[in-house]
Protein backbone atom coordinates (compact mmCIF):
# COMPACT_ATOMS: atom_id res chain seq x y z
CA UNK A 1 0.00 0.00 0.00
CA UNK A 2 2.79 2.41 0.91
CA UNK A 3 4.61 1.64 -2.36
CA UNK A 4 1.49 2.60 -4.31
CA UNK A 5 1.07 5.70 -2.15
CA UNK A 6 4.60 6.70 -3.11
CA UNK A 7 3.76 6.35 -6.81
CA UNK A 8 0.50 8.31 -6.39
CA UNK A 9 2.39 10.93 -4.41
CA UNK A 10 5.04 11.32 -7.10
CA UNK A 11 2.39 11.80 -9.79
CA UNK A 12 0.50 14.38 -7.71
CA UNK A 13 3.83 15.95 -6.73
CA UNK A 14 4.86 16.37 -10.37
CA UNK A 15 1.73 18.45 -11.03
CA UNK A 16 2.17 20.43 -7.82
CA UNK A 17 5.83 21.02 -8.64
CA UNK A 18 5.12 22.40 -12.12
CA UNK A 19 2.45 24.73 -10.74
CA UNK A 20 4.76 25.80 -7.92
CA UNK A 21 7.51 26.72 -10.41
CA UNK A 22 5.14 29.26 -11.96
CA UNK A 23 4.30 30.66 -8.52
CA UNK A 24 7.94 30.87 -7.46
CA UNK A 25 8.93 32.64 -10.71
CA UNK A 26 6.14 35.21 -10.58
CA UNK A 27 6.66 35.78 -6.84
CA UNK A 28 10.41 36.30 -7.15
CA UNK A 29 10.06 38.81 -9.97
CA UNK A 30 6.69 40.50 -9.39
CA UNK A 31 7.03 40.36 -5.58
CA UNK A 32 3.51 39.28 -4.73
CA UNK A 33 1.70 36.01 -4.10
CA UNK A 34 -0.54 35.52 -7.12
CA UNK A 35 -3.62 33.70 -5.83
CA UNK A 36 -5.00 33.61 -9.36
CA UNK A 37 -2.24 31.18 -10.39
CA UNK A 38 -4.46 28.19 -9.62
CA UNK A 39 -7.01 29.53 -12.10
CA UNK A 40 -4.36 29.46 -14.83
CA UNK A 41 -4.15 25.69 -14.25
CA UNK A 42 -7.92 25.36 -14.64
CA UNK A 43 -8.08 27.62 -17.68
CA UNK A 44 -5.18 25.76 -19.28
CA UNK A 45 -6.97 22.46 -18.77
CA UNK A 46 -10.28 23.76 -20.18
CA UNK A 47 -8.69 25.55 -23.14
CA UNK A 48 -6.92 22.28 -24.03
CA UNK A 49 -10.23 20.42 -23.65
CA UNK A 50 -12.09 22.82 -25.93
CA UNK A 51 -9.34 22.78 -28.55
CA UNK A 52 -8.92 19.00 -28.38
CA UNK A 53 -12.67 18.49 -28.83
CA UNK A 54 -12.61 21.02 -31.66
CA UNK A 55 -9.79 19.20 -33.43
CA UNK A 56 -11.60 15.89 -32.87
CA UNK A 57 -14.70 17.39 -34.48
CA UNK A 58 -12.64 18.38 -37.52
CA UNK A 59 -10.95 15.00 -37.80
CA UNK A 60 -12.19 12.03 -35.79
CA UNK A 61 -8.90 10.19 -36.37
CA UNK A 62 -7.14 12.71 -34.12
CA UNK A 63 -9.18 11.36 -31.19
CA UNK A 64 -7.99 7.76 -31.60
CA UNK A 65 -5.69 6.76 -28.71
CA UNK A 66 -1.96 7.04 -29.45
CA UNK A 67 0.01 3.93 -28.45
CA UNK A 68 -0.64 2.93 -24.83
CA UNK A 69 -2.11 6.34 -23.89
CA UNK A 70 -5.77 7.20 -23.38
CA UNK A 71 -5.76 10.24 -25.70
CA UNK A 72 -5.32 10.91 -29.39
CA UNK A 73 -3.09 13.40 -31.22
CA UNK A 74 -5.73 16.05 -30.69
CA UNK A 75 -4.60 16.52 -27.06
CA UNK A 76 -0.87 17.16 -27.61
CA UNK A 77 -1.74 19.52 -30.47
CA UNK A 78 -4.34 21.26 -28.33
CA UNK A 79 -1.87 21.41 -25.43
CA UNK A 80 0.64 23.40 -27.52
CA UNK A 81 -2.05 25.92 -28.46
CA UNK A 82 -3.40 25.97 -24.90
CA UNK A 83 0.03 26.85 -23.49
CA UNK A 84 0.17 29.85 -25.83
CA UNK A 85 -3.41 30.90 -25.04
CA UNK A 86 -2.99 30.52 -21.26
CA UNK A 87 0.13 32.66 -21.53
CA UNK A 88 -1.90 35.24 -23.45
CA UNK A 89 -4.56 35.14 -20.72
CA UNK A 90 -1.88 35.86 -18.10
CA UNK A 91 -0.51 38.75 -20.18
CA UNK A 92 -4.05 40.10 -20.52
CA UNK A 93 -4.55 39.93 -16.74
CA UNK A 94 -1.25 41.80 -16.32
CA UNK A 95 -2.15 44.44 -18.89
CA UNK A 96 -5.66 45.02 -17.52
CA UNK A 97 -5.02 44.62 -13.79
CA UNK A 98 -1.62 43.86 -12.27
CA UNK A 99 0.44 46.06 -14.61
CA UNK A 100 -1.85 49.04 -13.99
CA UNK A 101 -1.62 48.56 -10.24
CA UNK A 102 2.20 48.29 -10.47
CA UNK A 103 2.32 51.51 -12.48
CA UNK A 104 0.29 53.25 -9.76
CA UNK A 105 2.72 51.96 -7.12
CA UNK A 106 0.28 49.36 -5.76
CA UNK A 107 1.47 47.79 -2.52
CA UNK A 108 1.84 44.04 -2.04
CA UNK A 109 -1.47 43.74 -0.22
CA UNK A 110 -3.27 45.53 -3.06
CA UNK A 111 -1.70 43.17 -5.60
CA UNK A 112 -2.64 40.13 -3.50
CA UNK A 113 -6.23 41.34 -3.10
CA UNK A 114 -6.39 42.01 -6.85
CA UNK A 115 -5.21 38.45 -7.48
CA UNK A 116 -8.03 37.15 -5.25
CA UNK A 117 -10.49 39.15 -7.34
CA UNK A 118 -8.95 37.90 -10.57
CA UNK A 119 -9.14 34.31 -9.30
CA UNK A 120 -12.81 34.64 -8.44
CA UNK A 121 -13.61 36.21 -11.81
CA UNK A 122 -11.69 33.61 -13.80
CA UNK A 123 -13.22 30.71 -11.84
CA UNK A 124 -16.77 32.01 -12.19
CA UNK A 125 -16.22 32.55 -15.90
CA UNK A 126 -15.12 28.92 -16.26
CA UNK A 127 -18.23 27.72 -14.42
CA UNK A 128 -20.36 29.89 -16.67
CA UNK A 129 -18.71 28.64 -19.87
CA UNK A 130 -18.25 24.95 -19.04
CA UNK A 131 -20.56 24.27 -16.01
CA UNK A 132 -19.33 22.65 -12.81
CA UNK A 133 -19.74 19.10 -14.15
CA UNK A 134 -16.43 17.20 -14.31
CA UNK A 135 -15.03 16.72 -17.81
CA UNK A 136 -12.43 14.34 -19.28
CA UNK A 137 -10.01 14.38 -22.19
CA UNK A 138 -10.82 10.76 -22.86
CA UNK A 139 -13.31 8.25 -21.59
CA UNK A 140 -10.97 5.35 -22.50
CA UNK A 141 -10.14 3.10 -19.55
CA UNK A 142 -6.49 2.41 -18.83
CA UNK A 143 -5.04 -0.58 -17.04
CA UNK A 144 -2.31 0.32 -14.53
CA UNK A 145 0.96 -1.41 -15.40
CA UNK A 146 2.88 -3.26 -12.69
CA UNK A 147 6.19 -1.50 -12.04
CA UNK A 148 7.54 -3.89 -9.42
CA UNK A 149 7.43 -3.66 -5.65
CA UNK A 150 3.60 -3.44 -5.59
CA UNK A 151 3.74 -0.20 -7.58
CA UNK A 152 1.40 0.31 -10.50
CA UNK A 153 0.87 3.25 -12.81
CA UNK A 154 -1.03 3.91 -16.02
CA UNK A 155 0.87 5.00 -19.17
CA UNK A 156 -0.76 8.46 -18.80
CA UNK A 157 0.59 8.75 -15.26
CA UNK A 158 4.10 7.72 -16.34
CA UNK A 159 3.93 10.25 -19.15
CA UNK A 160 3.07 13.08 -16.74
CA UNK A 161 6.04 12.12 -14.54
CA UNK A 162 8.42 12.05 -17.51
CA UNK A 163 7.09 15.30 -18.97
CA UNK A 164 7.42 17.07 -15.59
CA UNK A 165 11.06 15.92 -15.31
CA UNK A 166 11.86 17.15 -18.83
CA UNK A 167 10.20 20.54 -18.20
CA UNK A 168 12.01 21.09 -14.88
CA UNK A 169 15.38 20.37 -16.51
CA UNK A 170 14.50 22.66 -19.43
CA UNK A 171 13.47 25.55 -17.12
CA UNK A 172 16.56 25.05 -14.97
CA UNK A 173 18.80 25.19 -18.07
CA UNK A 174 16.94 28.25 -19.33
CA UNK A 175 17.56 30.09 -16.05
CA UNK A 176 21.21 29.09 -15.65
CA UNK A 177 22.55 28.86 -19.22
CA UNK A 178 20.65 31.37 -21.34
CA UNK A 179 20.88 35.15 -21.58
CA UNK A 180 17.14 35.44 -20.91
CA UNK A 181 17.46 33.24 -17.83
CA UNK A 182 20.34 35.31 -16.44
CA UNK A 183 18.30 38.45 -17.05
CA UNK A 184 15.37 36.87 -15.18
CA UNK A 185 17.63 36.10 -12.22
CA UNK A 186 19.03 39.63 -12.33
CA UNK A 187 15.54 41.18 -12.36
CA UNK A 188 14.54 38.86 -9.52
CA UNK A 189 17.40 40.20 -7.38
CA UNK A 190 17.26 43.91 -8.17
CA UNK A 191 14.89 45.42 -10.75
CA UNK A 192 16.41 48.89 -10.62
CA UNK A 193 19.94 47.61 -11.17
CA UNK A 194 18.65 45.34 -13.93
CA UNK A 195 17.34 48.44 -15.71
CA UNK A 196 20.65 50.26 -15.52
CA UNK A 197 22.58 47.29 -16.92
CA UNK A 198 20.34 47.50 -19.99
CA UNK A 199 17.73 44.83 -19.23
CA UNK A 200 14.21 45.69 -20.37
CA UNK A 201 12.46 44.77 -17.12
CA UNK A 202 8.97 44.93 -18.67
CA UNK A 203 10.02 42.38 -21.30
CA UNK A 204 11.29 40.05 -18.57
CA UNK A 205 8.01 40.44 -16.66
CA UNK A 206 6.12 39.43 -19.80
CA UNK A 207 8.37 36.38 -20.24
CA UNK A 208 7.78 35.37 -16.62
CA UNK A 209 4.01 35.60 -17.06
CA UNK A 210 4.21 33.51 -20.23
CA UNK A 211 6.46 30.91 -18.63
CA UNK A 212 4.51 30.68 -15.38
CA UNK A 213 1.17 30.46 -17.18
CA UNK A 214 2.53 27.93 -19.68
CA UNK A 215 3.71 25.65 -16.87
CA UNK A 216 0.40 26.10 -15.06
CA UNK A 217 -1.38 25.08 -18.25
CA UNK A 218 0.74 21.91 -18.55
CA UNK A 219 0.11 21.10 -14.87
CA UNK A 220 -3.64 21.64 -15.44
CA UNK A 221 -3.66 19.34 -18.47
CA UNK A 222 -1.76 16.70 -16.47
CA UNK A 223 -4.28 16.96 -13.64
CA UNK A 224 -7.11 16.74 -16.16
CA UNK A 225 -5.53 13.70 -17.77
CA UNK A 226 -4.88 11.64 -14.63
CA UNK A 227 -7.81 12.87 -12.51
CA UNK A 228 -10.53 15.04 -14.08
CA UNK A 229 -11.21 18.59 -15.23
CA UNK A 230 -13.26 20.86 -12.95
CA UNK A 231 -13.48 24.66 -12.63
CA UNK A 232 -12.24 24.36 -9.03
CA UNK A 233 -9.27 22.09 -9.81
CA UNK A 234 -6.72 24.94 -9.70
CA UNK A 235 -8.27 26.53 -6.64
CA UNK A 236 -8.10 23.20 -4.80
CA UNK A 237 -4.40 22.91 -5.63
CA UNK A 238 -3.56 26.45 -4.48
CA UNK A 239 -2.49 25.57 -0.92
CA UNK A 240 -0.22 22.68 -2.02
CA UNK A 241 1.23 24.96 -4.73
CA UNK A 242 2.12 27.70 -2.26
CA UNK A 243 3.39 25.15 0.27
CA UNK A 244 5.72 23.74 -2.42
CA UNK A 245 6.88 27.18 -3.62
CA UNK A 246 7.73 28.24 -0.06
CA UNK A 247 9.20 24.87 0.97
CA UNK A 248 11.42 24.86 -2.13
CA UNK A 249 12.60 28.41 -1.53
CA UNK A 250 11.16 31.35 -3.44
CA UNK A 251 12.98 31.75 -6.75
CA UNK A 252 14.36 28.22 -6.86
CA UNK A 253 13.06 26.09 -9.74
CA UNK A 254 14.66 22.81 -8.59
CA UNK A 255 13.49 23.68 -5.08
CA UNK A 256 9.87 24.11 -6.22
CA UNK A 257 9.92 20.77 -8.04
CA UNK A 258 11.58 18.92 -5.16
CA UNK A 259 9.13 20.49 -2.72
CA UNK A 260 6.21 19.67 -5.01
CA UNK A 261 7.22 16.00 -4.85
CA UNK A 262 7.59 16.22 -1.05
CA UNK A 263 4.13 17.77 -0.68
CA UNK A 264 2.59 15.23 -3.08
CA UNK A 265 4.24 12.31 -1.27
CA UNK A 266 3.29 13.66 2.16
CA UNK A 267 -0.34 14.01 1.11
CA UNK A 268 -0.46 10.52 -0.40
CA UNK A 269 1.18 8.89 2.63
CA UNK A 270 -1.04 10.86 5.02
CA UNK A 271 -4.08 9.44 3.23
CA UNK A 272 -2.77 5.92 3.89
CA UNK A 273 -1.62 6.50 7.44
CA UNK A 274 -4.10 8.90 9.02
CA UNK A 275 -7.00 9.04 6.58
CA UNK A 276 -8.15 10.88 3.48
CA UNK A 277 -9.92 13.60 5.45
CA UNK A 278 -6.50 14.92 6.57
CA UNK A 279 -5.07 15.21 3.07
CA UNK A 280 -5.75 18.95 2.72
CA UNK A 281 -4.24 19.68 6.14
CA UNK A 282 -0.86 18.25 5.16
CA UNK A 283 0.10 21.13 2.84
CA UNK A 284 -0.96 23.62 5.51
CA UNK A 285 1.14 21.90 8.18
CA UNK A 286 4.16 21.86 5.83
CA UNK A 287 3.64 25.55 5.00
CA UNK A 288 3.49 26.61 8.66
CA UNK A 289 6.42 24.37 9.67
CA UNK A 290 8.66 25.79 6.93
CA UNK A 291 7.75 29.39 7.72
CA UNK A 292 8.57 28.79 11.38
CA UNK A 293 11.78 26.82 11.00
CA UNK A 294 13.37 27.64 7.63
CA UNK A 295 11.60 30.57 5.98
CA UNK A 296 14.10 30.64 3.11
CA UNK A 297 12.99 27.11 2.16
CA UNK A 298 15.10 24.10 1.13
CA UNK A 299 17.03 25.67 -1.74
CA UNK A 300 16.23 29.36 -1.34
CA UNK A 301 18.67 32.01 -0.24
CA UNK A 302 18.53 33.46 3.27
CA UNK A 303 17.14 37.00 3.39
Amino acid sequence: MIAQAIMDGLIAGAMIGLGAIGITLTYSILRFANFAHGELLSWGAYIALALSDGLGYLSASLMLPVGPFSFGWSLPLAAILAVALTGTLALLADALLFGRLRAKGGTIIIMVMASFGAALTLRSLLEFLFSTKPAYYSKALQIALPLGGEMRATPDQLLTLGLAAVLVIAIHLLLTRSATGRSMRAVSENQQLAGIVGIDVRRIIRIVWLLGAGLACVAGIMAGLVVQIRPHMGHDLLLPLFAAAILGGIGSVPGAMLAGLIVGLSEAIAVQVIGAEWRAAVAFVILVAVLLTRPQGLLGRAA
Partner: protein
Amino acid sequence: MSVPALSTDALVAGYERDLPIVRGIDFSVGIGELVVVLGPNGAGKSTLVKAIAGLVTIHSGAIRLGDRDITSAPAHEKVHQGLAFVPQTENIFTTLTVHENLLVAANILAKETRSRRISELYALFPDLAARPSLKAGQLSGGQRQMLAVARALIVAPSVLILDEPSAGLSPKVAADVFRTLKSINETGVTIILVEQNVKAALAIAHRGVILVDGKRRHEGPAATLAGDPIVAELYLGAHRAPPAVGA
Protein backbone atom coordinates in the same frame (compact mmCIF):
# COMPACT_ATOMS: atom_id res chain seq x y z
CA MET B 1 31.79 74.85 -30.39
CA SER B 2 31.82 71.07 -29.87
CA VAL B 3 28.77 69.27 -28.48
CA PRO B 4 29.27 68.28 -24.82
CA ALA B 5 29.32 64.57 -23.93
CA LEU B 6 26.38 65.15 -21.59
CA SER B 7 24.37 68.18 -20.60
CA THR B 8 21.30 69.09 -18.59
CA ASP B 9 19.11 72.09 -19.18
CA ALA B 10 17.13 73.56 -16.24
CA LEU B 11 16.67 70.06 -14.87
CA VAL B 12 14.07 69.66 -12.12
CA ALA B 13 13.78 66.18 -10.61
CA GLY B 14 12.79 64.41 -7.44
CA TYR B 15 10.70 61.66 -5.92
CA GLU B 16 7.60 63.85 -5.45
CA ARG B 17 6.36 66.54 -7.80
CA ASP B 18 5.80 69.08 -5.02
CA LEU B 19 9.18 68.45 -3.49
CA PRO B 20 11.89 68.58 -6.18
CA ILE B 21 15.39 67.79 -4.96
CA VAL B 22 17.19 68.89 -8.11
CA ARG B 23 15.94 72.42 -8.75
CA GLY B 24 16.82 73.71 -12.19
CA ILE B 25 20.37 72.53 -12.79
CA ASP B 26 22.25 73.46 -15.97
CA PHE B 27 25.23 71.21 -16.20
CA SER B 28 27.51 70.04 -18.96
CA VAL B 29 30.49 67.74 -19.28
CA GLY B 30 32.89 67.87 -22.20
CA ILE B 31 34.00 64.81 -24.15
CA GLY B 32 36.82 63.04 -22.26
CA GLU B 33 36.37 65.18 -19.15
CA LEU B 34 36.37 63.85 -15.60
CA VAL B 35 34.03 66.02 -13.58
CA VAL B 36 33.40 65.61 -9.88
CA VAL B 37 30.08 66.69 -8.39
CA LEU B 38 30.49 67.86 -4.83
CA GLY B 39 28.23 69.27 -2.18
CA PRO B 40 27.04 68.85 1.37
CA ASN B 41 24.61 66.10 2.38
CA GLY B 42 21.17 66.71 0.88
CA ALA B 43 22.54 68.94 -1.90
CA GLY B 44 20.97 66.70 -4.56
CA LYS B 45 24.16 65.13 -5.96
CA SER B 46 22.89 61.55 -6.00
CA THR B 47 19.43 62.61 -7.17
CA LEU B 48 21.00 64.51 -10.07
CA VAL B 49 22.95 61.51 -11.33
CA LYS B 50 20.04 59.13 -10.70
CA ALA B 51 17.78 61.44 -12.70
CA ILE B 52 20.32 61.47 -15.54
CA ALA B 53 20.45 57.64 -15.38
CA GLY B 54 16.64 57.41 -15.53
CA LEU B 55 15.99 56.30 -11.95
CA VAL B 56 14.33 59.44 -10.60
CA THR B 57 11.31 61.23 -12.07
CA ILE B 58 12.17 64.28 -14.13
CA HIS B 59 9.56 67.02 -13.67
CA SER B 60 10.96 69.48 -16.21
CA GLY B 61 14.10 70.36 -18.12
CA ALA B 62 16.12 68.24 -20.50
CA ILE B 63 19.05 65.84 -20.61
CA ARG B 64 21.18 65.40 -23.72
CA LEU B 65 23.72 62.69 -24.36
CA GLY B 66 25.85 64.18 -27.11
CA ASP B 67 23.24 65.67 -29.43
CA ARG B 68 20.48 63.20 -28.50
CA ASP B 69 17.66 64.11 -26.12
CA ILE B 70 17.46 61.27 -23.57
CA THR B 71 15.21 63.06 -21.06
CA SER B 72 12.33 60.62 -21.22
CA ALA B 73 14.24 57.47 -22.21
CA PRO B 74 13.89 54.62 -19.69
CA ALA B 75 17.03 53.53 -17.82
CA HIS B 76 17.66 50.45 -19.97
CA GLU B 77 17.53 52.47 -23.20
CA LYS B 78 20.04 55.00 -21.88
CA VAL B 79 22.54 52.17 -21.50
CA HIS B 80 22.02 51.24 -25.15
CA GLN B 81 22.73 54.87 -26.06
CA GLY B 82 26.08 54.85 -24.23
CA LEU B 83 25.34 56.04 -20.71
CA ALA B 84 26.54 53.77 -17.90
CA PHE B 85 25.74 54.31 -14.23
CA VAL B 86 27.24 52.74 -11.10
CA PRO B 87 25.00 53.31 -8.05
CA GLN B 88 26.50 53.84 -4.61
CA THR B 89 25.06 50.64 -3.13
CA GLU B 90 23.52 47.46 -4.52
CA ASN B 91 25.51 47.93 -7.70
CA ILE B 92 26.18 44.25 -8.50
CA PHE B 93 24.01 41.14 -8.58
CA THR B 94 25.19 39.30 -5.47
CA THR B 95 23.47 36.00 -6.32
CA LEU B 96 25.11 35.84 -9.75
CA THR B 97 28.76 34.91 -10.24
CA VAL B 98 31.36 37.49 -11.26
CA HIS B 99 31.24 36.18 -14.84
CA GLU B 100 27.43 36.16 -14.91
CA ASN B 101 27.40 39.80 -13.78
CA LEU B 102 29.51 40.66 -16.80
CA LEU B 103 27.47 38.41 -19.11
CA VAL B 104 24.22 40.08 -18.06
CA ALA B 105 25.67 43.49 -18.87
CA ALA B 106 27.14 42.20 -22.15
CA ASN B 107 23.70 41.08 -23.38
CA ILE B 108 23.17 44.34 -25.23
CA LEU B 109 26.33 43.84 -27.30
CA ALA B 110 26.38 41.90 -30.55
CA LYS B 111 26.84 38.18 -29.81
CA GLU B 112 30.20 37.94 -31.57
CA THR B 113 31.74 40.77 -29.52
CA ARG B 114 30.62 39.70 -26.02
CA SER B 115 33.45 37.27 -25.21
CA ARG B 116 36.11 39.62 -26.54
CA ARG B 117 34.78 42.55 -24.52
CA ILE B 118 34.61 40.47 -21.32
CA SER B 119 38.21 39.32 -21.91
CA GLU B 120 39.26 42.97 -22.29
CA LEU B 121 37.60 43.81 -18.98
CA TYR B 122 39.25 40.84 -17.27
CA ALA B 123 42.60 42.16 -18.55
CA LEU B 124 41.78 45.55 -17.01
CA PHE B 125 40.62 43.99 -13.71
CA PRO B 126 42.87 40.93 -13.11
CA ASP B 127 41.44 40.57 -9.60
CA LEU B 128 38.08 39.67 -11.17
CA ALA B 129 39.67 37.43 -13.79
CA ALA B 130 41.06 35.31 -10.95
CA ARG B 131 37.59 34.45 -9.61
CA PRO B 132 34.99 34.38 -12.42
CA SER B 133 32.92 31.60 -10.80
CA LEU B 134 32.71 33.21 -7.37
CA LYS B 135 29.30 34.51 -6.31
CA ALA B 136 29.58 38.30 -6.43
CA GLY B 137 28.13 38.49 -2.91
CA GLN B 138 31.33 36.87 -1.62
CA LEU B 139 33.62 39.58 -3.00
CA SER B 140 35.29 42.16 -0.75
CA GLY B 141 34.11 45.78 -0.79
CA GLY B 142 36.84 46.89 -3.18
CA GLN B 143 36.33 43.93 -5.49
CA ARG B 144 32.61 44.66 -5.58
CA GLN B 145 33.28 48.24 -6.68
CA MET B 146 35.68 46.98 -9.34
CA LEU B 147 33.06 44.52 -10.58
CA ALA B 148 30.45 47.30 -10.64
CA VAL B 149 32.80 49.50 -12.69
CA ALA B 150 33.75 46.60 -14.98
CA ARG B 151 30.06 45.80 -15.44
CA ALA B 152 29.39 49.42 -16.43
CA LEU B 153 32.34 49.50 -18.84
CA ILE B 154 31.24 46.36 -20.69
CA VAL B 155 29.13 48.42 -23.07
CA ALA B 156 32.05 50.80 -23.81
CA PRO B 157 30.00 53.80 -22.66
CA SER B 158 30.62 57.30 -23.88
CA VAL B 159 29.74 58.61 -20.40
CA LEU B 160 30.30 56.75 -17.14
CA ILE B 161 28.57 58.06 -14.00
CA LEU B 162 29.55 56.85 -10.54
CA ASP B 163 27.77 57.66 -7.29
CA GLU B 164 30.24 57.70 -4.40
CA PRO B 165 32.38 54.73 -5.48
CA SER B 166 34.68 55.11 -2.47
CA ALA B 167 31.89 54.98 0.14
CA GLY B 168 32.59 52.36 2.80
CA LEU B 169 36.02 51.45 1.43
CA SER B 170 39.31 51.60 3.33
CA PRO B 171 41.58 54.52 2.29
CA LYS B 172 43.92 52.14 0.47
CA VAL B 173 41.14 50.44 -1.50
CA ALA B 174 39.51 53.82 -2.19
CA ALA B 175 42.84 55.05 -3.59
CA ASP B 176 42.91 51.99 -5.90
CA VAL B 177 39.38 52.82 -7.09
CA PHE B 178 40.34 56.45 -7.85
CA ARG B 179 43.50 55.31 -9.67
CA THR B 180 41.39 52.93 -11.77
CA LEU B 181 38.88 55.68 -12.60
CA LYS B 182 41.69 58.00 -13.66
CA SER B 183 43.14 55.35 -15.97
CA ILE B 184 39.67 54.66 -17.45
CA ASN B 185 39.24 58.39 -18.10
CA GLU B 186 42.63 58.46 -19.80
CA THR B 187 41.28 55.97 -22.36
CA GLY B 188 38.78 58.63 -23.45
CA VAL B 189 35.72 57.75 -21.35
CA THR B 190 33.91 60.81 -20.00
CA ILE B 191 33.34 60.39 -16.26
CA ILE B 192 30.95 62.12 -13.87
CA LEU B 193 31.81 61.32 -10.31
CA VAL B 194 29.71 62.11 -7.22
CA GLU B 195 31.96 62.04 -4.16
CA GLN B 196 32.14 62.95 -0.50
CA ASN B 197 35.88 62.22 -0.52
CA VAL B 198 36.60 65.74 -1.81
CA LYS B 199 40.40 65.75 -1.80
CA ALA B 200 40.83 62.41 -3.54
CA ALA B 201 38.14 63.18 -6.09
CA LEU B 202 39.54 66.61 -6.97
CA ALA B 203 43.00 65.07 -7.28
CA ILE B 204 41.90 63.00 -10.29
CA ALA B 205 39.25 65.34 -11.77
CA HIS B 206 39.59 68.02 -14.41
CA ARG B 207 36.75 70.09 -13.05
CA GLY B 208 34.48 70.28 -10.02
CA VAL B 209 30.84 71.33 -9.73
CA ILE B 210 29.39 72.18 -6.34
CA LEU B 211 25.69 71.74 -5.62
CA VAL B 212 23.87 73.31 -2.70
CA ASP B 213 20.13 72.85 -2.07
CA GLY B 214 19.56 71.26 -5.45
CA LYS B 215 21.19 74.09 -7.39
CA ARG B 216 24.59 74.56 -8.98
CA ARG B 217 26.39 77.08 -6.80
CA HIS B 218 30.01 76.99 -7.83
CA GLU B 219 32.33 75.34 -10.30
CA GLY B 220 35.89 75.54 -11.49
CA PRO B 221 39.03 73.63 -12.41
CA ALA B 222 39.73 70.85 -9.92
CA ALA B 223 43.18 72.19 -9.04
CA THR B 224 41.68 75.59 -8.19
CA LEU B 225 38.81 74.15 -6.17
CA ALA B 226 41.19 71.95 -4.17
CA GLY B 227 42.71 75.08 -2.64
CA ASP B 228 39.50 77.15 -2.60
CA PRO B 229 38.26 78.19 0.87
CA ILE B 230 34.67 78.26 -0.48
CA VAL B 231 34.79 74.49 -0.98
CA ALA B 232 35.81 73.99 2.63
CA GLU B 233 33.19 76.47 3.81
CA LEU B 234 30.43 74.68 1.96
CA TYR B 235 31.43 71.39 3.47
CA LEU B 236 31.82 72.90 6.91
CA GLY B 237 28.37 74.47 6.60
CA ALA B 238 29.54 78.08 6.89
CA HIS B 239 26.84 80.74 6.81
CA ARG B 240 28.47 83.01 4.25
CA ALA B 241 26.49 82.91 1.00
CA PRO B 242 28.47 81.27 -1.80
CA PRO B 243 29.24 83.33 -4.89
CA ALA B 244 27.24 83.07 -8.09
CA VAL B 245 27.84 80.33 -10.62
CA GLY B 246 31.01 80.67 -12.61
CA ALA B 247 32.75 82.72 -9.97
